[in-house]
């Protein structure tokens, strides 16, 4: 094998040995590699199973970031607002847009192959691939899971997730756990009941399906009045996390349907707006925690569950940190699902006065969508959304893109129609006054206390997610087009690059032959940066 140990080369501070002449794809991303949190590769949507988006790479650091320069740009034809998170395996980068996958040389940006799905149903976004052994996996606007040969882009197998004609599709990057591809569904806003599936990564055979909306008689079904479970929503449109030691898969579940009128679905509406912990071997539910029981504001709880081991109240604990779209930051015990702590991470939050000892919101009466319109904060778009948070073990801080703002929320009596139609029963009008602002916020992991914030000045919406590195940096892509490096411990902006396009994706970092790169999708392009020398 002529493959050099790229990770080893990095720990030798980038010393590039003669044995490492070429970057070679071994065509084998192993389970072990997937379990290793940090390496020169970026192998999963959030960089590691614990979804911390924290990289051990530190060639680009607080003192060298000054000389971070653009190395290449890969243009994705006909793309507009890419949300793809590049996956990098041994020098090859995989990026997507709906119906399309591109493999590019991660050092130069030169294309190796492209895959186009035909016919191409127009629906987006697509957030990226998963990789395992010699294949990459992605999901499509027509609700298929497709396995491609990683070296050539040839289709190896396809598995149908659901009926596209019913309105189903899938935007999320799948996840590989022990030889299974975990993939989910969208959208919840059409009254379609979601699912989370596991497929044999080698053959494409479906192994299990978890139904977030329980059927009559199953536990949780008592939380749905009448027949309302039939068009209940609860989709799985982002990627989850995995704890190999506990062998638990954590996945966020989306909103109940109809989004804004709960009159027809009295009850807590389990397991919408929850994080579920599943046995990845069987898909069986081990525990759940519901952030917003009987949600009325489309506050999908799909935001990434971040897994951290830390001391909590004097004891080492396996924790899960989650900043929810509903405005609260939560800390759970991820072995049991027990609620440990919750506090708001936005100032504009008027629908609940706090959380009970069990973590249930204490509702403020009347603050909910009405026929005439009522001001609800956060707005339906949420205090957080799909843009990935990050956690740095070096600073102990949890970083989140936070949206301050309210909406005037209305409800209507719209009824469900099969065939993929919207089933929202109205929505909200965002109050775009001068309180409507986006921030990167650093929260103390265990107390949720705001340690610093950086306003994304000039951005009118979330923009992209975050990346933390051992170089003491936090990378942040702003909707206004700025790609920024903040000092992780205090939020000071140390470096920025104006990409000229709106950024709606999360950054990554990787290394090839001992040289670190930082990459992000901006508008219609993938851009990669490295040190000048």
């Amino acid at each position, binding site marked *: 094998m002529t493959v050099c140990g790229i990770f080893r080369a990095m720990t030798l501070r980038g010393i590039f040995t003669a044995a490492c002449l*070429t970057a070679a794809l071994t065509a084998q991303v192993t389970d072990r590699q997937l379990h290793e949190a940090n390496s020169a590769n970026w192998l999963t949507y959030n960089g590691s199973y614990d979804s911390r988006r924290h990289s051990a790479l530190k060639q680009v650091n607080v003192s060298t970031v000054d000389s971070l320069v653009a190395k290449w740009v890969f243009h994705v034809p006909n793309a507009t607002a890419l949300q793809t998170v590049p996956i990098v395996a041994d020098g090859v980068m995989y990026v997507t847009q709906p119906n399309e996958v591109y493999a590019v040389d991660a050092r130069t940006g030169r294309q190796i192959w492209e895959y186009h799905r035909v016919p191409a149903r127009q629906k987006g976004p697509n957030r990226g691939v998963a990789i395992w052994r010699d294949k990459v996996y992605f999901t499509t606007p027509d609700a298929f899971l497709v396995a491609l040969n990683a070296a050539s882009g040839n*289709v190896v197998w396809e598995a149908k997730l659901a009926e596209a004609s019913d309105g189903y599709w899938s935007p999320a990057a799948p996840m590989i756990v022990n030889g299974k591809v975990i993939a989910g569904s969208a959208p919840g806003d059409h009254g379609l009941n979601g699912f989370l599936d596991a497929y044999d990564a080698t053959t494409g055979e479906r192994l299990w399906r978890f139904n977030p909306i329980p059927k009559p008689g199953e536990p949780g079904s008592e939380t749905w009045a009448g027949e309302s479970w039939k068009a209940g929503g609860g989709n799985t449109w982002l990627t989850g996390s995995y704890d190999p030691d506990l062998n638990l898969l954590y996945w966020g579940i989306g909103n109940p349907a109809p989004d804004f009128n709960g009159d027809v679905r009295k009850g807590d509406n389990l397991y919408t707006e929850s994080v579920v912990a599943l046995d990845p071997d069987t898909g069986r539910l081990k525990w759940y925690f519901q952030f917003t029981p009987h949600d009325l504001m489309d506050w999908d709880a799909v935001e990434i569950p971040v897994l951290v081991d830390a001391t909590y109240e004097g004891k080492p604990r396996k924790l899960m940190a989650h900043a929810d779209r509903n405005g609260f930051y939560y800390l759970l015990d991820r072995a049991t699902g027990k609620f440990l702590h919750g506090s708001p991470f936005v100032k504009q939050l008027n629908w609940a006065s706090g959380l009970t000892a069990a973590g249930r919101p204490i509702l403020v009466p009347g603050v909910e969508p009405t026929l005439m319109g009522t001001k609800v904060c956060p707005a339906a778009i949420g205090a957080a959304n799909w843009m990935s948070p990050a956690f740095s073990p070096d600073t102990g801080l949890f970083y989140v893109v936070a949206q301050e703002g309210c909406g005037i929320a209305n409800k209507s009596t719209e009824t469900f129609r099969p065939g993929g139609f919207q089933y929202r029963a109205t929505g909200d009008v965002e109050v775009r006054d001068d309180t409507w602002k986006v921030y990167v916020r650093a929260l103390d992991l265990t107390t949720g206390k705001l340690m610093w914030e950086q306003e994304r000045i000039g951005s009118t919406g979330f923009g992209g997610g975050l990346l933390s590195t051992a170089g003491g940096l936090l990378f942040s892509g702003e909707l206004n087009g700025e790609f920024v490096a903040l000092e992780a411990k205090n939020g000071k902006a140390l470096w920025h690059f104006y990409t000229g396009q709106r950024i709606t994706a999360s950054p990554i970092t990787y290394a090839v032959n001992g040289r670190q790169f930082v990459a992000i999708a901006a508008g219609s392009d993938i851009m990669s940066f490295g040190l000048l020398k």
Partner: protein
Amino acid sequence: MKPILFAVLLGAASLVAQPPKPSNPLGDAPAVAESGRLLYNRSCTSCHGPDGGEGARGPALDFAGRRYFRVSEAAIFDVIKNGIPGTAMPASGLADNDAWRVVAFIRNIRATASDLVVPGEEQNGMAVFTGVGGCSRCHMIRGQGGVLGPDLSSIGAQASLNRLRDALTKERSIPNGYRPVTVTTLKGEIFTGVARNSDAFSLQLLEESSKLRLFDLSEVRSAVFSKQSLMPHGYDKSLSKTQFQDLLAMLSRQTRTKVKATLQGENEVGR
């Protein structure tokens, strides 16, 4: 049938727009196309080439990857009946039915292999593909096989029968991404495969083993490209007649992606 639906829709639309487009009343069965071929070779080859190829005074009409101005049955019929004013293309004087026969022929030579009934045993063809033909060393069909050559899972819906036959029997120009290359690094390591991409600064090489080798050319002593494709092209001689025909039949039926690439200009009315 699509043409009927089309006519009905157009009928409704004709209140505001163009008159309905006629489609071939004789249909497009192989026998109709064959009678059209005979008529064509009698009336048109003074300018166009035989069997629809390029001629001394007229362009190729077959599936040569060119952009046709006239694609629909109605547009081709119009050209045959009325010629193209201002060019050397004359009105033919063929009777309507004969003109429609020639239309069927021209549409047929532009068809992809999967549109045609190619005689041969598909299963035997697959056995040749994975066996004596050695094709699966370099080509994948439905997830099985090598990666050096293009995936052939949908080749029947993408290529004309002529293109398939030529690929197996003739030296052709090498498409982008398949140029064979041998790279020697500064250290003296030697790698061979196809160059999926290259420029003056880097080269992306795919080895037969499915390994990608990504070179920065500053680390490379030489990159030598071959002018000859890795695709062997004497299969009409190295395989038996039946094996060859079965192989063709099998390839013509590879339509994993069932939608056929629409010809450029499809559905456009003539100039």
